[in-house]
């Protein structure tokens, strides 16, 4: 077990090295990345891609060569529907928006799974069919980019601080995946993806596992669509194809096997982040009129190169088996953080002396803007952001505890924890409904 997990982790070496190189380059070329606003906007811009890559990752792990080409159009579809509804005044509350988006994502993916299972057509053909149908219907719903996002999302997309609801969504999505990997369902999923016949013969109900994988992917796509809506604050039916192509590239960069059975949130996250970094680094060079072409070419070349590298990984890992991906991550991470700190603080040391005197150490090293610059606001984090931060930290603590107990107990059953999570979520929903008297699930709020 340990051996197999380390060999699958070896595929992470490619994205880790890529991220280290790209991040250093990005920080040196564009130091504005290492500011609260820079990181905040980076998170918001990268969030849809990250979540779409998660969705693709779940489906890829499920096997049968499932590359859901329709992930981009589906994301655009949810975006367009939410914007259309909110422009018409039907979606005012966050909860209704989330329910609509996640419901749409899950419904589409459920249909996808049912077609694969009962009609028994290859997934790639179903995905192709969905791609064409959704691309068409998006343009019918919203012929050209426009409309306005629900009002509560307006502040999300500004990207002025790190702790935004978008970050919370990413954190929750990632943590959800790690909680999920502790379940028996996940091991069944991996087994099915690796060898469906073996899984079926050993009594795994492959149909149900496949449906479950698709439902999870639907949730991820819906969350990605909401982040995308927050990012552009409007509807855009035309970006589906690009999103599909970028997300598939990110998936491959992250070392997820398209043949199934191998992959995880870490790889998908790293793939998506390194893809975003490629775009960022390229944007810091000034190519003038050929900027877009250069980006396209570099994407293509990196896609092909990273695929060829995955061929070499088994060979490399045989000779350098003493390098664990996580130690590589640690060392390279430290180096990159050093570069980042140097860039972030170099101006401070060079120029005005009083900054060192006045600014607290934490101001400089935790990338928090000095309070003296904000005239009216004494606190730099608003109430909602505190709530989001606390919720995120609580979720991290919860998952860490759960994984720890699970590892100690050695059992592969996490049923109790899942029940607790669901119960807490439902309770939170009721609490939100009670605390906000003006809260209405559906209706013309305003």
């Amino acid at each position, binding site marked *: 077990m340990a051996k197999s997990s380390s060999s699958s982790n070896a595929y992470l070496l490619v994205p880790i090295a890529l991220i280290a190189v790209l991040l250093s380059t990005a920080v040196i070329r564009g130091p504005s990345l290492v500011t609260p606003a820079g990181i905040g906007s980076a998170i918001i811009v990268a969030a849809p891609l990250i979540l779409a890559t998660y969705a693709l990752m779940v489906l890829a792990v499920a096997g049968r060569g499932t590359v859901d080409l329709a992930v981009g159009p589906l994301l655009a579809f949810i975006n367009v529907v939410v914007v259309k509804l909110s422009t018409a005044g039907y979606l005012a509350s966050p909860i209704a928006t989330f329910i609509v988006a996640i419901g749409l994502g899950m419904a589409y993916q459920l249909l996808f799974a049912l077609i694969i299972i009962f009609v028994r*057509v290859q997934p790639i053909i179903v995905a*192709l069919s969905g791609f064409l149908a959704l691309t068409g219907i998006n343009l019918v719903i919203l012929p050209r980019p426009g409309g306005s996002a629900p009002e509560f999302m307006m502040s999300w997309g500004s990207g002025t601080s790190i702790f935004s609801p978008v970050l919370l969504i990413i954190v929750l999505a990632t943590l959800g995946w790690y909680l999920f990997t502790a379940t028996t369902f996940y091991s069944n999923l991996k087994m099915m993806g690796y060898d469906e016949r073996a899984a079926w013969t050993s009594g795994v109900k492959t149909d149900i596992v496949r449906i479950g994988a698709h439902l999870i992917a639907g949730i991820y796509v819906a969350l990605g669509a909401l982040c995308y809506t927050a990012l552009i604050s409007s509807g855009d039916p035309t970006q589906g194809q690009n999103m599909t192509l970028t997300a598939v590239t990110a998936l491959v960069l992250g070392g997820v096997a398209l043949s199934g059975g191998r992959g995880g949130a870490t790889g998908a996250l790293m793939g998506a982040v390194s893809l975003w970094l490629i775009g960022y680094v390229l944007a810091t060079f000034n190519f003038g009129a050929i900027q877009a072409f250069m980006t396209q070419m570099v994407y293509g070349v990196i896609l092909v190169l990273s695929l060829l590298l995955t061929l070499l990984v088994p060979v490399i890992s045989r000779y350098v088996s003493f390098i664990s991906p996580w130690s590589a991550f640690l060392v390279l991470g430290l180096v990159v953080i050093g570069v980042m700190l140097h860039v972030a603080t170099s101006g401070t040391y060079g120029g005005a002396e009083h900054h060192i005197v006045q600014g607290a150490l934490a101001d400089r090293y935790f990338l928090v803007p000095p309070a003296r610059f904000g005239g009216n606001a004494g606190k730099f984090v608003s109430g909602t952001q505190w709530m989001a931060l606390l919720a995120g930290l609580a979720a991290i603590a919860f998952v860490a505890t759960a994984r720890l107990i699970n590892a100690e107990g050695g059992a592969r059953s996490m049923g109790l924890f899942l029940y607790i999570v669901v119960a807490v979520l439902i309770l939170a929903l009721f609490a939100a409904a009670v605390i906000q008297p003006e809260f209405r699930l559906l209706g013309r709020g305003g």
Partner: protein
Amino acid sequence: MSELQTDRARFALLPIPRSIALVWLNVVLSLIVAAIGLGVGFSQGKLAAQEVILFTVLLAAVLFILLNYVAVVFEARAAAGDQEQTDAESGRIRGLWQQNRVMIIAMAGLLILYLLITAGVPEFRSIKNLIAFLVLELILVFAFKVSGYFADGRSAFIGLIVLFALIVISSFSIEGFLSASNVRAILLFAAFLGIASIGQTMVALLGGLDLSIPFVIGSSNIALLFLITVGVPSYVAFGFILVLGGIIGLLNGIMSFRLQGQALIVTLGTGFAVAGFTQIMTSIGSQYAGNVFGTVPPWLANLAAMNGRFFGLPFPPTIIIWVVLAILLIVGLRITSWGRNLYALGGNRRSASLIGISELKYWVACYVISGVFAALTGCLLLGWSGGAFIGVGDPYLFTTLAAVVIGGTSLLGGNGGYGFTVIGVLVLQVLTSFLLGIGLKYEWQQFIFGLLILPMVALYGRSPHIRSTV
């Protein structure tokens, strides 16, 4: 054994059924259809008499061969069917449902779709559409109940029926659908799509996919005009672009050989790289980033433009090029050892390599063919439009795949052929023309294409249940 050999002989170029009565029936049917065609041709008034006669003779001949082929297939199936008498009187209702459930579900789905559209779109409510709907339902019955008699060409048979039905419905409901200019337009666009799908078919026969086709089309489109504008003689530039397309295919093949499960992604990556590179190269030293302006040489324009002439006949030579290529490919894949080896490889890699077929050689060759024909399509599209545009290939990203899939070539390899793809291409183009004719916008067309692929594939491309693979 000798029986089998005579059967093989009957499937030769001119299939002849055993019973003479069937042959006479076929002759009569072909003549009747030809006579109708003659009448329709003269009633157009615009066509020259020689052309009408030429096309009528061609139509009669093709129809005769096709009918004979169908008759031979039926005879073989009937002979086989006599031997296997089925029992099973018990549970007849259940058995009936078991055998026909897909058909019933499909018919019910169509009914619901029709009712939905009728309820939603007021312009849709007309007697013509009702007739069209009933014809479609009839076709479904026909496709399910009759196509069972065809073992190999089931997908081709269903495709032909759908094609036929589409033509009937469109000519009923659209004014001037069968006019010479519309037919010419359909054939011209079918030729573009058909040439672009050659490579996709070959690659699919080996179980791969080539998504770089649209990017190669767009790149060759602008690169050709760029080279001509720079001053390279147009014939040389044309050949050079084809060679470049071949080189891209070579790269694709070599790089994806060890990554066969991910050929989709590898070709997508090379496609991106090629499109970006071409745009960078063509925009160096010009102030229009990525756009190339210039004049297309007359021979190229004549080759593919709508008013092009082929030795005086009023249709563009591109259609002839496509027909010749199609015949070469269909016959070549059937009778040459190269073609048979290709099928063997697609069917079972291990067995094929054991009898000494080099997998790498065939894999790379298929991608090279794909690159060359994608480049050819790009060049022809330049002649058609008269201006270069990188996005000209974009519609071909999934339509080449759709044509292959609708035609019935399995994406898993080893099954199908270019003849099937020709049917798929024609179905797609006639459907496009029909949807345009009834006034649907591009996005609705795309939506319907998407919905069409699934049932078409579900009719013949279903994989076995996992129960039966263990």
